[in-house]
């Protein structure tokens, strides 16, 4: 009987609670209501390029601007948002999600016609996909603006003739290394003896391989290797793509006309170089398929890698208690037979067509451009404007900027193909091919021939 009574009470509580909730004012419906808001996205007259204060529209009432970002984008734009809030009285709300979720959630939101996001900070590779559903930003791209941005960034901001995104920051992989290893006279002597030339920070493939082999060693005599020359990442594809550009390929996977070039000689050479480091020279921690950005970063911070190729922002992320703090050197990305090459990884602010506060969004994006340098003090510390980088390039603690600028300016630093199927190509072809090549059991030519067939099937 006691149990029965207990259950009766529980059930009644259930029902009452549910009814109360069901009848309660639904906050959800209000914001989910579709916004066929009065479309104020018509561009204001061209003379308004230098926006200082708010325009007529949202001046009187304050609104909340919702920005979809991932961690990096959040930290870089927080200072900008704070200043924006102070100057205009509006509220900026960041919705931070993991990397892939930026794409997935934006897609789902636009598909559902929802207005949860006024601005979205997206990776350049998604621009083609979202271009049709993004508000045009042509009026923001004056000559003055274009001149202060790296050329690749301006190129990638457009799709099919319209400017759809404003760059917020640019990034590229550069070379990180442990200074103590390269500057140590004993190491230098030993290296010279073994290889016949002076030990220096690698600038090309051969020097990179030699240094990696040289530094892979068992430092405490227990039979296990404690220091690796570098890491070979099998969890991500961009680093191999950078290698492809270093090999001299005019593009990665596809050329400018959309032809599949993934099996050209440059790709083959690049794949061989990339995988030889692991398969032939064993300079990397062996669990290559688990090495993604996270894992590699961790290894370097623990002092287990002599060198690492990584995104430039990482320089400012070195934890204070890491063994490589104060000991990390940076240099431009290495050159292959085709020169220095890297994959630029810019991010752009776009305005989804389903946004609620389009005018305010545009204001914010313009404001963000003008205050682009504010992002440099953030932990991620990156910017999009050349002038911003120049102003910090020789400051202490920003030693990575010159290498980054050099890398970004290199002729073989080319953006990824702007096709809507890039997500799929990455997921289904590029990453698997890298991982397959890293099993060391299939020749590069074969892997790439397969990849070509797969990409052609996708188109």
């Amino acid at each position, binding site marked *: 009987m006691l149990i029965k009574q207990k259950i009766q009470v529980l059930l009644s509580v259930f029902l009452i609670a549910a009814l109360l909730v069901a009848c309660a004012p639904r906050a959800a419906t209000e914001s989910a209501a579709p916004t066929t808001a009065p479309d104020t996205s018509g561009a204001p007259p061209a003379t308004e390029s230098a926006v200082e204060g708010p325009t007529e529209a949202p001046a009187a009432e304050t609104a909340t601007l919702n920005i979809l970002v991932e961690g990096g984008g959040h930290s870089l734009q927080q200072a900008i948002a704070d200043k924006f809030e102070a100057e205009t009285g509006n509220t900026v709300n960041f919705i931070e999600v993991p990397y*892939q979720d930026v*794409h*997935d959630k934006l*897609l*789902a939101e*636009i*598909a559902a016609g929802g207005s949860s996001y006024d601005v979205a900070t997206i990776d350049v590779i998604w621009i083609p*996909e*979202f271009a*049709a*559903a993004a508000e045009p930003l042509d009026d923001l791209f004056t000559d003055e603006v274009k001149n202060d941005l790296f050329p690749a960034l301006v190129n990638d901001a457009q799709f099919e003739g319209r400017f759809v995104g404003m760059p917020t920051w640019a990034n590229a992989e550069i070379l990180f290394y442990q200074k103590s290893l390269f500057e140590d006279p004993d190491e230098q002597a030993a290296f010279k003896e073994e290889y016949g030339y002076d030990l220096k920070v690698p600038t090309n493939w051969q020097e990179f391989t030699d240094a990696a082999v040289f530094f892979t060693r068992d430092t405490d005599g227990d039979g*296990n290797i404690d220091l690796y020359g570098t890491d070979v990442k*099998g*969890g991500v594809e961009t680093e191999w793509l950078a290698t492809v550009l270093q090999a001299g390929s005019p593009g990665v996977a596809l050329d400018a006309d959309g032809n599949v070039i993934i099996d050209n000689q440059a790709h083959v050479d690049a794949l061989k170089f990339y995988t030889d480091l692991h398969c032939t020279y064993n300079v990397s*921690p*062996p*669990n290559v*398929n*688990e090495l993604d950005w996270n*894992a590699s970063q*961790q290894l370097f911070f623990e002092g287990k890698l002599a060198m690492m190729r990584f995104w430039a922002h990482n320089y400012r992320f070195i934890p204070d208690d890491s063994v490589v703090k104060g000991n990390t050197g940076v240099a431009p990305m290495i050159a292959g037979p085709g020169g220095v090459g890297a994959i630029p990884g810019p991010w752009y602010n776009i305005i989804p067509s389903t946004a609620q506060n389009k005018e305010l969004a545009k204001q914010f994006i313009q404001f963000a451009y003008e205050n682009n340098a504010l992002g440099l003090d953030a932990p991620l510390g990156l910017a999009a404007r050349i002038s911003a980088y120049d102003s910090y390039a020789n400051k202490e603690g920003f030693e990575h900027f010159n290498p980054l600028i050099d890398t970004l300016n290199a002729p073989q630093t080319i953006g990824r193909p702007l096709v*809507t*199927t890039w*997500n*799929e190509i990455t*997921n*289904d072809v590029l*990453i*698997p091919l890298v*991982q*397959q090549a890293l099993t060391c059991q299939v020749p590069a030519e074969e892997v790439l021939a397969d990849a070509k067939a797969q990409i052609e*099937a996708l188109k």
Partner: protein
Amino acid sequence: MERSSRTFVILLTIPAALFFLVFFTYPVLLLVYNSLFDVSLLALQNRKFVGLENYADILTSAQTIKLFSQTLQFTAITLGSEFILGFIAALTFNAIGRKSEVLRTMFLFPLMVAPIVAGLLWRFMLIDNFGILNHILTGLGLIQRTADIAWLSNPKIVLLSVALPDIWLTTCFVTLILYTGLQNIPGEIMEAARIDGANALQTFWSITVPLLRPVIAAVIILRGIDAARTFDSIWIMTGGGPMGRSEVLSLRIYLTMIRFGRFGDASALATVFLVVLLILCLIAFYTIWKPDISKR
């Protein structure tokens, strides 16, 4: 009496029946309808009728075989492990008898854990560098170094790794069902067998298992369906990698829809999945379940 009964039944079931119609039948029909189009998620209004082309793509793609094979392997690993482990546990509890009630209750509790949480905590235990499982295995001397088994990045074993949360979650359920079944076997039969001189193994195979067949059949079908539909735990553990070797059908369908935006293709694959699963269920139902019911 018959007439008014029927009205009563109809009236009482109308709300539920309506729900089924509107939120099962209609969506499934819509799914099939959408699968006949080439339509992108971002532009749902620009649809192009392509008939059965999406299905042709699916049926001729090498990836489809890989998908089905992986889903099947996953289901087999999960079901098999649950059964073996569940049986061992059930037999143990059964042998203990009444006193095992407390233990059994505690044993039940992973049933309450969300699959997403289970996936997360197993990922935490299996991940390289700081996953505790490899450290335990190294400590026990079963492997030499913690990097020896790459649970989440070795394509050959990743299916097993993503099966672990599922096995962990539902073994207790299988144990419970089998235990109840075991308890329902009349003691006299076991006595008779013992008197006849059968040892434990013989008793098990010739008496216990046949008597439990209806229960076993039910569990296979129910758990088999659930295993085939898994999404949450695999999603959070590997997202389908490495090299797509831990992708099962639900995952692929989700990716096709949200990551690649191909709504028509996703609908087609989902339809194929549905049809295949239903057919398999019907086959299983008629071969291993019904015969027992009619025998009773």
